[in-house]
């Protein structure tokens, strides 16, 4: 097969799938094949209301109080391993001792400390989100998808009981991707879910005060974030902290005396499980955290 190598062809295919346009410099046959791929992708369709209703009816008979629905934003929105669920160890680290011990041992070797918990135990009033950075607020996941203009990542299954969680809202801090959060709260148990999404793009790019860069972690797509606002891992300080565009800090919840220093974070996704390594002290470089991440695959 002449023209592009297999690797180049796949890269172009991925690019087309993300909505990229074909170059006129492509070899003729490859361009035609990729054009066909683009047309095949365009043939995708959404489920009809009939199908959604049909499946919902079958799975949730009238006697059941738990109806299956795709329409309520906070329910759709996640579950998602709350992003951070996945959080590799976050969810597991402090909640479950064996996993927590293991994770801490692994990371202590590299001087990395996990921020604790994605389920902060608020002691004050019911969580109220007061962002100072001008947010774009959406009411549905599809609105977020439309605004993002790139495929969002909806991370993994989430163990939280979504029936008890209230959707608080979406916020995005950039109009070209990379950083979107969705927040959930519970008046009784004070759950909080935060999700992050990104798209692969070349070169570092700024998002607010942070700086992001696409990375490869043992063949899996990842994201390196430097100086990321600590609101990302709200549980660490049992409060949400937003840094405004003017540098003003706003804290919601209990402070516990921690300073709202930004963090470094490395995320990568493997088979829809989102892994996150966090350096709360910004002492580790991108290369350091990549070394930790890649080492996870060396025992395979």
């Amino acid at each position: 097969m002449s023209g592009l190598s297999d690797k180049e062809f796949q890269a172009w295919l991925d690019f087309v799938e993300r909505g990229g346009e074909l170059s006129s410099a492509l070899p003729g046959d490859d361009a035609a094949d990729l054009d066909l791929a683009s047309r095949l992708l365009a043939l995708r369709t959404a489920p009809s209301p009939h199908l959604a209703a049909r499946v919902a009816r079958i799975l949730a008979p009238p006697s059941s109080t738990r109806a299956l629905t795709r329409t309520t934003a906070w329910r759709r929105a996640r579950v998602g391993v709350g992003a951070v669920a996945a959080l590799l160890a976050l969810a597991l680290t402090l909640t479950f001792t064996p996993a927590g011990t293991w994770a801490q041992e692994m990371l202590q070797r590299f001087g990395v400390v996990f921020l604790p918990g994605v389920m902060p135990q608020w002691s004050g009033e019911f969580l109220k989100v007061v962002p100072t950075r001008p947010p774009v607020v959406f009411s549905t996941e599809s609105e977020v998808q439309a605004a993002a203009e790139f495929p969002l990542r909806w991370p993994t299954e989430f163990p939280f009981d979504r029936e008890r969680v209230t959707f608080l809202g979406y916020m995005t801090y950039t109009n070209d991707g990379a950083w979107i959060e969705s927040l959930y709260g519970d008046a009784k148990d004070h759950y909080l879910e935060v999700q992050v999404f990104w798209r692969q793009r070349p070169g570092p790019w700024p998002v607010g005060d942070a700086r992001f860069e696409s990375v490869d972690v043992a063949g899996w797509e990842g994201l390196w974030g430097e100086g990321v606002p600590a609101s990302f891992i709200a549980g660490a300080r049992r409060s949400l902290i937003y840094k405004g565009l003017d540098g003003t800090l706003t804290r919601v919840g209990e402070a516990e005396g921690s300073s709202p220093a930004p963090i470094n974070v490395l995320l990568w996704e493997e088979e829809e499980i989102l892994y996150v390594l966090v350096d709360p002290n910004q002492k580790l470089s991108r290369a350091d955290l990549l070394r930790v991440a890649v080492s996870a695959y060396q025992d395979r």
Partner: protein
Amino acid sequence: MATLIAQRIRQFLAREPGLSEGAFTYLYERHLDRILNYVRYRLGPEEAEDATADVFVRAWGRRRGYDSEKGTPTTWLWAIARNVVTDRLRRRRLRQVELSLDLAVSTDPLADIERQEEWRRVQVALGYLPTVDQEIIALRFGAGHTNRAIAGLMEMSEANVAQRLRRALRKLRTQLQGDDML
């Protein structure tokens, strides 16, 4: 080590036998569209919605038997989806499929007709490809799976998937050109 992490997360997610309602609902929300489009490729638009519903009915009935040690919920659901397609393709040999209109809702009837015509041509052209290639095309362009995910589902190497996908696209295009599509 990452395997250990994944196992522990799975154990946590599946601390009760089977798949919880919440986890199942998540699967449904996340994969309904993708399974529908995969099934459309494999079975055609006439049968797609019915088969997709069948996938979730079957999965719902078997959710208590889900074993986190054997794979992720996603892998489990997709195995069921592929089984449903295989079963229907087998049955198809025994009976004529009753045609019905595509139920997709649209505000542009002309575009609908064009799409249906294009679909018809793609379906015919796909029929000339080996079954494995049809499956790869459906999983990539219908379901939106990555080559890596397809490799996992089909128990092939990622490189093999990439090669077959490229060749399948070329064959499909040649076939469609014969149909005066391009």
